[in-house]
Every structure is written in structure tokens, then in C-alpha cells.
């Protein structure tokens, strides 16, 4: 028994080192000056510098990238959950005409390659005057987040016995009072997991957010790719920007760590 544990620990260590090594290298780069990056090869910074981070915190075109990204990610999460909650309830509780087809059709949107939608989205949002706004990106990301949220929430809702609904209706609760006072708290961890996934997929997406924004709502991902092509390669600042994009994700994971495994099985375990 003891020996097996050690073997497991060794394998996990190897895997985690494999995962963390590239991230460490990024952090290493972000703490060096460009001269040091290109001049000498070293495993850790020789002259520790935070200049790269200062560039980002003092230049509005950099730090607004982060603010813009967070604005549309939060908008997207709220919209996705607001429409997915009632729909997931309907799918988990009732049979109605075309329900199975509708459910699969929703899922097909999760399967749609963003590359297919990039140009039509650009034209659609330009024609309604929403191009380069946060709401445009938030709405575009609902394309893949709403189906996912419905899928996850439906899985969690199926785990709540139907008798609870019936008892509440007999006790004279209306639908809305029941839904918000009794049902929502019961599936709060499901809502948390769904929110986490909406946040995640909206936060990591580049193609649509880059296509739909220009200046005012430019996302951090777009800022990073554009800066690379415009001003040559400033490896230090690029690395610092990369490190800063990892932090929100790491925080979110930390908060949902107990639900994460269940959430990854989309509530079906």
C-alpha cells in the first residue's frame, strides 16, 4: 500500500511539473528586462524588475483591455444564467412538444465553430449598431454558453426530487415564489458551476471578441495579439500581460474547487 502511494505521488508530481513549467517560464520572462531576455539565458531573473507590469498598469490601452474583458464576461454570465435557469427547469420537469429536438438543437450551438460565425456576427452587430460594444461580445458568447448552462443546470435539477415542487404548490406557493425561494437555493452549487463555466469559456475566447471589437470594448486577448504585430515583439510586456490574464482564472478555480470535478461531469455524476 505504502509503495503504491509513492508511485502515485511520483506520477502526479511529474504531471504537475509538466503543467507548471511553461507557466513558470512565462513568469520568469515577465520579471526580466528585454535586454536580459534576449541577451542571456538564465533559469531565473538575474536583475529582478517589475517594469513590464508597470507598463501595463500605467498604459490605459493595456489596463482597459482587462476591464473590457471583465465587463463582457460578467454580462455574458448574467445573461446566460438568466435565460438558462427557466429553460433548464422546463427540460428537467416537463415533457412538451418537441422538447428533445429543441434540446439537441441548443447543443448544436455549442458545437458550432466560432470561425463559422465570426463574419456573420460582425455584419449582424454592425447592422444593428452594436459593433465595438461590450453587449455585442456578451451576446455573441451566449451562442456557446447558454447551451452549456442549460445542459449543466438540467443535470443538477434532475437530482432534486419532484416531490419538493409538488409540496410547495400544494402549500400555495406560486411558481415564481417557489422558484426563487425554494428551488434556487437547492441547486445553488449547480448555479455556481454553470457560472464558472460561462465565465471560463467567455474569458478564454479570442476569435469572436477580437472580431466584434475595435477600440472601446477591445478585449485583453485582442490587445495582446495586436500589440505583438504592431510594435514588434516586446517579450517582457507580453509575458507580464499573459501572467495577469491567468490570475482571475486561478482565483475563480480556487473558489469553486470543491465543485469543480462534479461540474466537469456537467452535473451528471
Amino acid at each position, binding site marked *: 500500500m505504502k509503495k503504491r502511494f509513492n508511485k502515485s505521488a511520483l*506520477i502526479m508530481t511529474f504531471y*504537475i511539473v509538466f503543467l507548471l513549467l511553461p507557466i513558470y517560464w512565462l513568469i520568469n520572462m515577465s520579471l526580466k528586462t528585454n535586454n536580459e531576455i534576449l541577451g542571456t539565458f538564465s533559469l531565473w531573473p538575474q536583475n529582478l524588475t517589475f517594469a513590464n507590469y508597470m507598463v501595463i498598469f500605467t498604459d490605459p490601452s493595456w489596463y482597459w483591455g482587462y476591464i473590457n474583458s471583465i465587463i463582457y464576461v460578467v454580462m455574458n454570465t448574467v445573461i446566460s444564467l438568466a*435565460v438558462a435557469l427557466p429553460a433548464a427547469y*422546463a427540460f428537467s420537469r416537463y415533457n412538451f412538444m418537441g422538447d428533445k429536438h429543441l434540446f439537441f438543437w441548443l447543443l448544436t450551438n*455549442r458545437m458550432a465553430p466560432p*470561425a463559422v460565425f465570426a463574419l456573420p456576427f460582425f455584419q449582424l452587430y454592425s447592422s444593428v449598431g452594436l459593433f465595438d460594444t461590450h453587449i455585442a461580445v456578451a451576446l455573441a458568447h*451566449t451562442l456557446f454558453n447558454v447551451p452549456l448552462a442549460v445542459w449543466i443546470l438540467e443535470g443538477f435539477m434532475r437530482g432534486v426530487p419532484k416531490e419538493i415542487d409538488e409540496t410547495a404548490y400544494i402549500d400555495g406557493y406560486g411558481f415564481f415564489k417557489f422558484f426563487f425561494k425554494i428551488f434556487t437555493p437547492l441547486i445553488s452549487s449547480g448555479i455556481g458551476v454553470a457560472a464558472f463555466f460561462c465565465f471560463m469559456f467567455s474569458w478564454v475566447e479570442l476569435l469572436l471578441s477580437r472580431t466584434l471589437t475595435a477600440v472601446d470594448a477591445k478585449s485583453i486577448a485582442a490587445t*495582446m495579439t495586436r500589440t505583438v504585430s504592431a510594435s514588434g515583439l516586446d517579450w517582457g510586456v507580453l509575458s507580464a500581460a499573459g501572467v495577469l490574464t*491567468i490570475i482571475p482564472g486561478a482565483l475563480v478555480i480556487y473558489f469553486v474547487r470543491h465543485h469543480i470535478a*462534479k461540474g466537469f461531469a456537467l452535473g451528471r455524476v
Partner: protein
Amino acid sequence: MKTVNQKAWFLVLPVLLLVGFSAVIPLMTVVNYSVQDTFGNNVFYWVGLEWFEEILHSERMHNALGRQVIFTTVIMLIEIPLGIFISLHMPKKGVWASVCLVLIALPLLIPWNVVGTIWQIFGRIDIGLLGHSLNALGIDYNYVQNATAAWITIIIMDVWHWTSLVVLLCYAGLQAIPDAYYQAAKIDQASRWNVFRYIELPKMMGVLLIASLLRFMDSFMIYTEPFVLTGGGPGNVTTFLSIDLVKMAIGQFDLGPAAAFSLIYFLTILLISWVFYTIMTNIDKREGM
């Protein structure tokens, strides 16, 4: 049992309107472009299925599709077994379980372009740990110029990025196995392999299908990571379907062919995903969920 209630449609209505706006309208635009041609000035005329024929016979599409299929097959063959293997060695409970979960999930939350940037920096021969060490060892490795090196880098990058998803799914599946199963196996003196083969694997089937479905869909649509890392190069050797499509639609603005390309692309993914989904719901039913 579920009750039949047509009023449930009202609960689905918001989703229908929203997804209708953000999916059906754009998709109709694509269909519209796919059957028309233009001389500019927004004058369009009907060309029927010409674009579809052109795309289905174009070598460029065949090559991109071939590369895509190879890529998806290779990464799934690596990620699914590796994911299962790692999940079997995850600590079951305690502080270490939490620590491992958080660290393992980390790559999933990194924006995809940053994933590309990380590997771009990591693999470069002048400043990257990987590229520099390999060259110091006398291995000729340069992902910017060498096609094989570019492929290997992209595959390792994808394994680095997404194996964690498989691990977490399998881990969730393993956690759901009651202890009684293991005790029964112990009484029967089942070997480690038999425990895996007859207890753990069947119980993981459901999550493994979800993992395969997600990995298939996402790897088939991969765009950002190779775009940042290699830009589809050197030459065209890492130009996958999405990269090719974006080049065609936004780079060259060939709307007709791009639209036909899009529809064929989407339908391919849809067809394969439908097969996965059908198997999945059948398993759900058999388990009486």
C-alpha cells in the same frame, strides 16, 4: 416521471429568442452567401450549389481537412488514455486532492491566445526553456521553420492544455464509485488490472463519452492556439480548418466559398457529435437516470 405540460414552452421562450437571435440569423446569412455570388456593390445573384461543388473538389479544403483529422485523432489518442491514467493516480481526499485539483485545472482557465503565447515563448530556440535545452542537447528543433517540430509543439501544447479536462472528468466518475465495489473486488482478490477493467472503466464510460465529445468538438474547431503559435505555418503545414476558414472569409473576403466551407464544416461536426450524443443518451437511459 415527467408530466406533459405544453406551457413549459413559455419557460424555454427566452432561450429560444436569444439563441435565435445569435445563432439562426447569422446562420441564415451564411446560407444566403453560400448560394450567391457578387461583383461588388452589394449586387448578388444566384449561383446554386456551385460554391459547394468548388469547395468539395478544392485541394485546399481536402488538405486542411486531412490535417484536421490527423490532429484530432492524435490528440485524442494521447489525451484520453493519459487522462484516465493520471486520474487513477489522483489523491482521493484531503488537502492534496484540493491542491492537485486546483493546479490541474489551471491550464483550462488560461485564455487560449495566452496558451499560444506561453508555448511560443517556451519553445523558442533563443529564449525558451524547451527550445534552448533541446538545441543544447544537439537536437535540431525549431518550430518556426521545421514542419515536424511545429506539429510536435502544437500537439504537446494541446496535450498540456486539455488533458486536465479528461483528468477532471474521470476523477469525477471515479469519485462516484461506492467503496463496496472495491471491497467486493478485494474479497475476490481481483488484480489491479481487473479492478480497472471490470469496475472502474464501465463506471467511467459516461464521463469518458462526454470527455471524448468535448475534446472532439473543441479540437475540431481549434483556432486561437495554433494561430498564435505558428500562424498556420511554416508554409501551410499547421493550417487547420478554422484557420483556413478565417483566412478565406476575413482575410480574402471570399464570401461565397467561405460560406459553403462553413456549412460543410459545421455539418461534419454536427454529424459526428450527433453520433456521440445518441450513444450518450442511450447509456443514460440504460442506467435508468
